[in-house]
C-alpha cells in the first residue's frame, strides 16, 4: 500500500518552513540565499507530487519544477553577484551590515 499524498506534502511543508526559518534566522546573506533554495525545493516537491499523484496525465507540475530550477539558478547567480558586491562595499555580508536604510 502506498503512502497517502499527505505524507509527501508534510515533507514539502516542513522543508518549506525550514527554509523560512533559515531565512529569518540565518545571519549571513549566503546562508539566507541557501534558505531560499530550500524553499524553492519544497515548492518543487509540491509540484512534482501533485503532478504524480493527482494529475499524472500531463507534465505540468514537472515542467514547472524544471523551470523553477532554471529560474532559481539564474536568481542565485544574480544574488551571489549582488552579495559579492555588498561584500566589496561593506567588507561584510552579515544581515546586520545592511541595515543602514531604515525607518
Amino acid at each position: 500500500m502506498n503512502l497517502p499524498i499527505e505524507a509527501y506534502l508534510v515533507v514539502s511543508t516542513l522543508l518549506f518552513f525550514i527554509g523560512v526559518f533559515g531565512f529569518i534566522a540565518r545571519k549571513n546573506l549566503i546562508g539566507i540565499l541557501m534558505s531560499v533554495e530550500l524553499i524553492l525545493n519544497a515548492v518543487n516537491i509540491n509540484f512534482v507530487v501533485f503532478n504524480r499523484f493527482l494529475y499524472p496525465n500531463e507534465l505540468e507540475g514537472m515542467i514547472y519544477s524544471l523551470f523553477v530550477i532554471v529560474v532559481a539558478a539564474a536568481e542565485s547567480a544574480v544574488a551571489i553577484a549582488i552579495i559579492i558586491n555588498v561584500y566589496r562595499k561593506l567588507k561584510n555580508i552579515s544581515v546586520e551590515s545592511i541595515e543602514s536604510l531604515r525607518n
Partner: protein
Amino acid sequence: MDFDFIDYLTGQNIMFVVLSAIVLGCGLMSVLSTKILRAATYLFFTLFGIAGLYLLMNYEFLAAVQLSVYAGAVVVLLIFAIFLVKNLGHETEKVSCSKKGIAALASVLGIVMTLVIVFNEGIVPAVVGPTAPQVDMQLIGDTLLGSGKHQYLLIFEASSVLLLACIIGAIVVATKSKEEK
C-alpha cells in the same frame, strides 16, 4: 479504517521515509549549522535527497536536472561565493536565541496551519500511485518545444531571455567598476 502498519512496509515507502529523513534532516542542519561551509554541504545533501525523491516518483529527467543544475551548479556557485568572501568559511554564526525563537515560532505557526489545512482538505489521490510509468524523453522534448496545449515552447524561449538577462545582470553587478579597480 484499519490501519495496518505492515501494509505500508513496502520498499517504495521505506525509501521515501529514508529520503525524507535525509532531506529534512539535512535541511534542518543546513539552516542550523553555524558554519556556512557546512551549511552548504548539508544543502547539497538535501538537494541530493530531493533528487532521490524525484527518482522515487519516476521523474528521472527532473532528478537529473536537479542534480546537475542544483547540486552541480548552484551549490558550487554558493561555495565559490563563500570562498570569495574572505574568512567566511571559518566564521561561526552567532544568532541570538530570541531571533531563532521568533523564526521558529513563525515557522511552526505556518507548519501547523498548512498541515491542518492539508489534512482537512481530503485530497483524493488519483488512481495512479507514485510509481507511475516513467516519463518518456520524447514526450519531455515535445512538451518543451511544442506550441500546443500543455506544451512550453514559449516558456522555453522566454526563459532563455531570462537567463541571458540574468547573466548580463550578474556580470555587471559583480565586475568591479573603474574606480574600484
